[in-house]
């Protein structure tokens, strides 16, 4: 590690090497033993000393109680909500299945002929068997 990289890391992470990127810590420890390294850490350490004076009070029992009181209701409500959504989901899947089945039946089934096909009195399965005009003319 060179002096520039060491100073850049101290600028960013401060004087405590345990906050530095793990991959740089071993090399940094060696450089920290040099005069230049010690000077860089001393300078960063002055700011760290100030920053360490900023303390946040531990949460009080009232805040604890408020958060715990809210927890039971929220977890219960969320589980109920998820249960209902699961129910709606299953109902939706069922409905979608019914619609898809109906559509399939409609597409695949053949056309249904009308029950009462009124046949012409002269029609046969071979077509119109009415008086043959050509034959009639020939007979004349």
């Amino acid at each position, binding site marked *: 590690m060179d002096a520039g990289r060491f100073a850049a890391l101290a600028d960013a992470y401060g004087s405590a090497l345990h906050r530095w990127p793990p991959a740089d810590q071993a090399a940094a420890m060696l450089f920290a033993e040099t005069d230049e390294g010690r000077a860089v850490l001393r300078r*960063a350490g002055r*700011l760290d000393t100030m920053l360490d004076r900023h303390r946040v009070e531990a949460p009080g029992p009232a805040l604890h109680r408020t958060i*715990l009181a809210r927890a039971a209701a929220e*977890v219960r409500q*969320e589980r109920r909500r998820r249960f209902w959504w699961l129910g709606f989901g299953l109902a939706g899947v069922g409905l979608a299945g019914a619609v898809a089945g109906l559509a399939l039946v409609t597409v695949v089934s053949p056309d249904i002929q009308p029950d009462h096909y009124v046949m012409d009195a002269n029609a046969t399965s071979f077509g119109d068997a009415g008086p043959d005009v050509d034959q009639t003319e020939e007979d004349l």
Partner: protein
Amino acid sequence: MTGADPDEELVRRIGAGDPAAVQAMVARKLPRILALAARMLGDAAEAEDVAQETFVRIWRHASGWRQGHARFDTWIHRVALNLCYDRLRRRREWTTDELPEVADDAPLPDAVPGDDERRVNQALQRLAPRQREAIVLVYYQELSNIEAAGVMQISVDALESLLARGRRALQAMLVGDDGND
């Protein structure tokens, strides 16, 4: 992210409605969330509100929590920070949606003996919020650089740049030099 999430089992138990797990989660995370919010906002009462809102989100999401790319601790840091930013934006002094990117690093008034904590709080609040966020996550919350960059959704290089600029500003305000002596 490497390794198992140390909070995953606790979160699963909360989702299953285990009251002991709820208490354990509050004991484990409340001091960290409260400290994070207090340093981001500089106001103890607002920090307590943010801590409460963060836990409400934990309770709501516990039963559906699945570990994805982020650890649970990373996720709650992000939730708490989003709540802090909501409050910062709502404050009257913010006249636009954009939070300032540049710190006001003019030296603070001379210290009264025993008054360092207040001076540090003032100095932190005068930093640009993203610089403050970086310093709070790495210095006070002791997240690794990779975890902090993940919470902030930036690269490690960008994180180091924010840290260095923030610390230089703090150095000027609190120690009286810019760290280049």
